[in-house]
């Protein structure tokens, strides 16, 4: 136990502060400090998932900025979708989206969810979230960096 506590104290706080402008923007949002997001993998290669996981590490610490990954779509304000939307995930994706209460936002994460990426044109994928849902925002990148994802989350929820 001692070793563990010592390590915690020695490590200190690593979380990087968002830039002043970003923070101000996010403060004014409807979901200020309490954005619940649900992730659906619609057939990604798991590269985007690695970066979504990275949002939870001490450097980005999305939860300390009020962005929280929730287990049920019914608790969510936003749906993050990754992958080129495989036929096999189509129905599950729609059902998950329907379960998210209004007002909700849908965000496409990564090149595959934006337009199918390298998998576009295959018999097994629909190719891009737009084919089934209207995304409120898109984060291109293969995979997009955690910073890109955070920036879009902040922007998508800024009051206009």
């Amino acid at each position, binding site marked *: 136990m001692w*070793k*563990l506590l010592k*390590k*915690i104290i020695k*490590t200190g706080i*690593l979380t990087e502060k968002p830039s002043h402008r970003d923070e101000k923007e996010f403060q004014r949002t409807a979901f200020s400090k309490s954005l619940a997001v649900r*992730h*659906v*993998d*619609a*057939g*990604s*290669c*798991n*590269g*985007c*998932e*690695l*970066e*979504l*996981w*990275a949002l*939870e*590490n*001490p*450097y*980005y610490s999305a939860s300390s900025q009020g962005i929280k*990954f929730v*287990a*049920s779509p019914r608790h969510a304000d936003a749906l993050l979708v990754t*992958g*080129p939307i*495989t*036929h*096999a*995930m189509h129905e*599950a*994706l729609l059902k*998950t989206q329907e379960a998210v209460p209004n007002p909700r936002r849908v965000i496409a994460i990564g090149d595959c969810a934006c337009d199918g*990426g*390298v*998998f576009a*044109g*295959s*018999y*097994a*994928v629909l190719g891009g979230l737009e084919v089934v849902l209207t995304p409120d925002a898109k984060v291109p990148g*293969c*995979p997009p*960096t955690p910073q890109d994802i955070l920036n879009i989350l902040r922007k998508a929820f800024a009051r206009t």
Partner: protein
Amino acid sequence: MDSSLPPVSPGGLCLIPLEEGIPRCFFPHENSATYLEHAADLKSTGGRFLGLWASASPFPRIYSSVLLKEGLILMVLSLGKDAAGDFVYPSLSRIFPSASRFERTVRDLFGFIPAGLEDQRPWVDHAHWSIPPLSVPPGTRISSQTSSMGRPDYPFVRVKGPGIHEIPVGPVHAGIIEPGHFRFQVLGEKILRVEERLGYAHKGVDGLFRGRTIMEGAKLAARISGDSTVAHSLAFAQAVEQALDFIPAAGVRFMRAFLLERERLMNHLGDLGAIGNDAGLAFALSQFGRLKEELLRKNHLHFGSRYLFDLVRPGGIAIFLGDPAIRDLLTEIARLLEEVLELQRIYDDHGGLQDRFQNTGILSPEIATRMGIGGVVGRASAQAWDLRSGHRCDPYHRFPPALALAHTGDVAARVRVRFLEIQESLFLSRALLEHFPENVIKEEFPINPDITEGIGIIEGFRGETVSWVRLSPGGIIQAAHHLDPSAILWPALEMAVPGNLVADFPLINKSFNLSYSGNDL
């Protein structure tokens, strides 16, 4: 390259140690009797089945890969039509039980029928097509409709009895997880049986490879499983290079081996944190998450990509390491080694953690041997297979990493193997950096005048990763297939779960950490 080494002969079984990779050869079969006999032979000499796939052009064939201690054998069976007009081949499932899901996949995608396969259920077919999408000629139906193709309700094996109930989970999971379905048969808190239903991430990769150039193919190979991008890129590069009879320079081999270790470190660090977290120690997730993020940032700084996407390419490597970068990476390695050892002591001394780890999710060495399990999971169940040791490949034979082995087969064993491998990986990375020969960036290779084939196999962070390509003249991919070790490991997870509590499933699953995308292709 030592020119005195003869190349692998494609016809016979002469597996001569090679500098440029694991010895690997094609073994053609014209009839099913010799094919089955050969498979049984390979099994009796200790061969491990790694996977099976099909190709349609120029004519239907089945490829089965079996790994021996000496190298990889790829049995190639040409298919003939039966009386009903279907392409039929004998099922290997009685010799290698793991062949079952692969053969079901081939039936779903190509319509080639495995004779003697008991499991007639579809696998990647989720009732979204009525004609096998890769059939020959395109659009051919299976005349003898033996499978339950097109059925929306998948017949899970059910356990019946008083008090037994079923828990369906997925394909959308409660977290940041890939899609897949698990069906638990439960008595109270105890799992009696779990069955996987995968294929939700099926993207038609085999179809997408067709007609692409080598470089386009490399881009696709890098995205078969994002967490193993180096492994798949490297296997693909090896396959193309074997097909083109091209041997990369020592500098390229060093850099590739180094990148592969970076990927192993990144994933093992992430897994150790996630496993600790699933056992209730949030401290583990933040500490290992920190180490992983620092590694990723170094990757971005020195290689321009956090996860090392698109750096390993056929013919060479896309990066250059200067002396300042090498010095910086050496410092990082020393620091990481110290930190990991410190965290390992915390893990070892933590009673609560060890209580969750030990005797949870046991994959016994006997079952692991019977199923031919390799990789981290296999080594945690006393399976002494690691392509990096025991072969003459350069640069591994210069600084062979010690085999990380554990015998209990539980979550604790898989944690221990990961800790050991991180240390060995750091030693190997240090040795590679200290003896770095020369920086070579090459992306030129000969253009093939004829149709040629090649295979590549490397030890990724999960286990053996295989790539096969057939090139048309001029470097266009006619067909290609990748094997992620996950495909062999998923059935092993089903064997490790029964008898455990439902609440322990996430922990056991995490300790396997398998790829859905790499499995579903």
